[in-house]
């Protein structure tokens, strides 16, 4: 259930935990410069869950990996500013970043099997992380590790501590990995598709856990996913990305009850409904996302957009009221007309 109070209304409207300004990430490739992230700005406040939605190639992972300083491809060019608690992260050396990663910002990945090393026990890996950042005896690290495993809901934590990753199920592995990410009490947790590799019943358990992390540990969470259902379930605010840019952002309520961008409409419509009548055909988005090597001029979504008009050859900037912004030239009236013409208005979907 999404929290009913928009995060922007939270009392601590002081400096955000993370503030990203005009972040651009490009890669030099044989076929030219590939712009994976084309100038995005966003902030994450303390205590909030921000959902980043988009399809493959939308830049959702690359942008968050840059926050972690995990892009060390020599052909990558990272520009812009990433301020974490007021400290600039862009341009820090790997050595300097090491004190930030794990301690301050931690990341969990889609596939916990490849993220954990298979040759050491779960406990060894958690203890290593604890002792890399804190002065702890091995006994104390073990004790803390077992506590962490218990906190993420692993039954028999002291037994699991000595298990190898392959001995655990997918859901348990993801829990163990989350325990590892939490070991140094990071203020910010970046979760990249944390439930995509899991079954729905296990996904439900992990989503409960993520909500609890915010409640019990006060973590801020950036949740990267392609699944709008997951976002609706846990996020306070949402950013919708397309071809390396943010095309719409707002509170979860705004994005789901009153989306503005035609791409957001298309995404909503593409998902078959779980309740109510089944449409004979799903209203799908025509075509496929553009190549990042060869982005169309103007609005990157315009070639697929049923509502494009002459202005769409220019590039729209994010604009709107308050926290709700969309990068689209449609006026509120035009939006209203377009929405009225849609086959399955969102309001009727429930």
């Amino acid at each position, binding site marked *: 259930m999404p929290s009913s109070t928009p995060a922007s209304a939270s009392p601590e409207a002081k400096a955000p935990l993370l503030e990203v300004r005009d972040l651009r990430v490009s890669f030099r490739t044989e076929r030219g410069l590939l712009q994976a992230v084309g100038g995005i700005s966003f902030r994450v406040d303390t205590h909030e869950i921000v959902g980043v939605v988009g*399809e493959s190639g939308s830049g959702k992972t690359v942008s968050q990996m840059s926050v972690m300083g995990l892009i060390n491809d020599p052909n990558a060019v990272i520009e812009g500013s990433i301020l974490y608690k007021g400290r600039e992260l862009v341009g820090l050396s790997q050595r300097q970043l090491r004190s930030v990663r794990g301690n301050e910002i931690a990341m969990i990945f889609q596939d916990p099997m490849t993220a954990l090393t298979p040759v050491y026990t779960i406990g060894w890996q958690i203890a290593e992380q604890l002792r890399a950042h804190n002065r702890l005896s091995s006994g104390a690290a073990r004790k803390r590790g077992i506590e962490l495993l218990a906190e993420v809901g692993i039954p028999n934590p002291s037994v699991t501590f000595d298990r190898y990753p392959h001995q655990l199920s997918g859901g348990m592995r993801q829990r163990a990995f989350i325990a590892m990410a939490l070991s140094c009490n990071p203020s910010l947790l970046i979760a990249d598709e944390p439930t995509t590799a899991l*079954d729905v*019943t296990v996904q439900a358990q992990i989503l409960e856990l993520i909500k609890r992390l915010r409640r019990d540990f006060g973590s801020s969470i950036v949740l990267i996913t392609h699944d*709008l*259902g997951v*976002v609706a379930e846990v996020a306070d605010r949402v950013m919708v990305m397309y071809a390396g840019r943010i095309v719409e952002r707002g509170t979860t309520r705004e994005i*789901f009850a009153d989306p503005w961008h035609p791409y957001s409409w298309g995404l909503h419509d593409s998902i078959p409904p779980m309740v109510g009548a089944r449409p004979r*055909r799903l209203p799908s988005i025509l075509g496929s996302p553009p190549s990042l090597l060869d982005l169309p001029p103007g609005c990157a979504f315009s070639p697929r957009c049923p509502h494009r008009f002459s202005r769409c050859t220019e590039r729209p900037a994010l604009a709107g009221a308050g926290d709700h912004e969309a990068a689209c030239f449609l006026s509120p009236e035009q939006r209203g007309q377009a929405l009225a013409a849609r086959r399955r208005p969102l309001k009727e979907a*429930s």
Partner: protein
Amino acid sequence: MNQATGAPLIEAVDVKKHFTVGNSLLAGQRRTVYAVDGVSFKVYPGETLGLVGESGCGKSTLGRCLVRLYDLTSGSILLKGREIGAMSQRELRPIRREMQMVFQDPYASLNPRRRVGDLIAEPLRVHGTASRDEIERRLKELMALVGLEAEHLNRFPHEFSGGQRQRIGIARALALHPGLLVADEPVSALDVSIQAQIVNLLADLQERLGLTYVFIAHDLSVVRQVSSRIAVMYLGAIVEMGPTEALFQAPAHPYTEALISAVPIPEVDRDDRRKRIVLTGDVPSPMNPPAGCRFNPRCRFATELCRKERPVLREVADGRTVACHYPLVQAASAA
């Protein structure tokens, strides 16, 4: 939707598929995976049977048994009333024309070194049913059918996006005019916007060509969209089967209920009559399934009976069967 009428196109009777793992020379280390453990169902012409379940429930193995990519451990498969479950590869050859498979990963299922035209024409050549001209004509026809350009026939798979590759996989499966298509997670590797295109394509093809589908997927919203009937699998067995709408509206098996309730809905502001049931624990290993009802360790209604006796599939309402001692739908509620 096509209701269950007339003779089934394909029927599975008590199909079992067990795999032996571990060191096969040392008897002590040999273990058996009960991947599919006694499954029976019928698929009628023109309908779509959705097979859902979580990973390891045996849905893919069952799909592969149906089209006889696997040999069965026991049981039989009847295609148009003819037993094909025990046929040899040679005997199966002519029958393969009637049933084809579409795979999940369009990146892995197409040979990267061959041109799309060759890939799609391969079944036509293998079965030797057509002359060179006829093959050319059929290729163009197939490309149009799945929404690709005829010029694309000379390209290689890597030049296509995931959605286009899945279209190629579908064209290949359709080359020999099969009546039955078994699609194993055909859209789960695709982005949502592309997923909808492929779901629509499959629906159009079914309408135009009168195809029958067995649609295997873990994504319940997709399965709900495409299927006329649904079979829910858990640990190698069907726990519930019934018409899509009825099954989603009022699931009869506690597992189906939990599965449906676990799907996150992309909406805010919905009235929460949809109560989430979070199952504890994981799916047990199919090497060592629990005694009695296989779902009992995770079931909130389990009793002593469930721990002892394995329930059989029995009818609870018109066209609905459930394997549960205490079904959530009683025989009276035929909506």
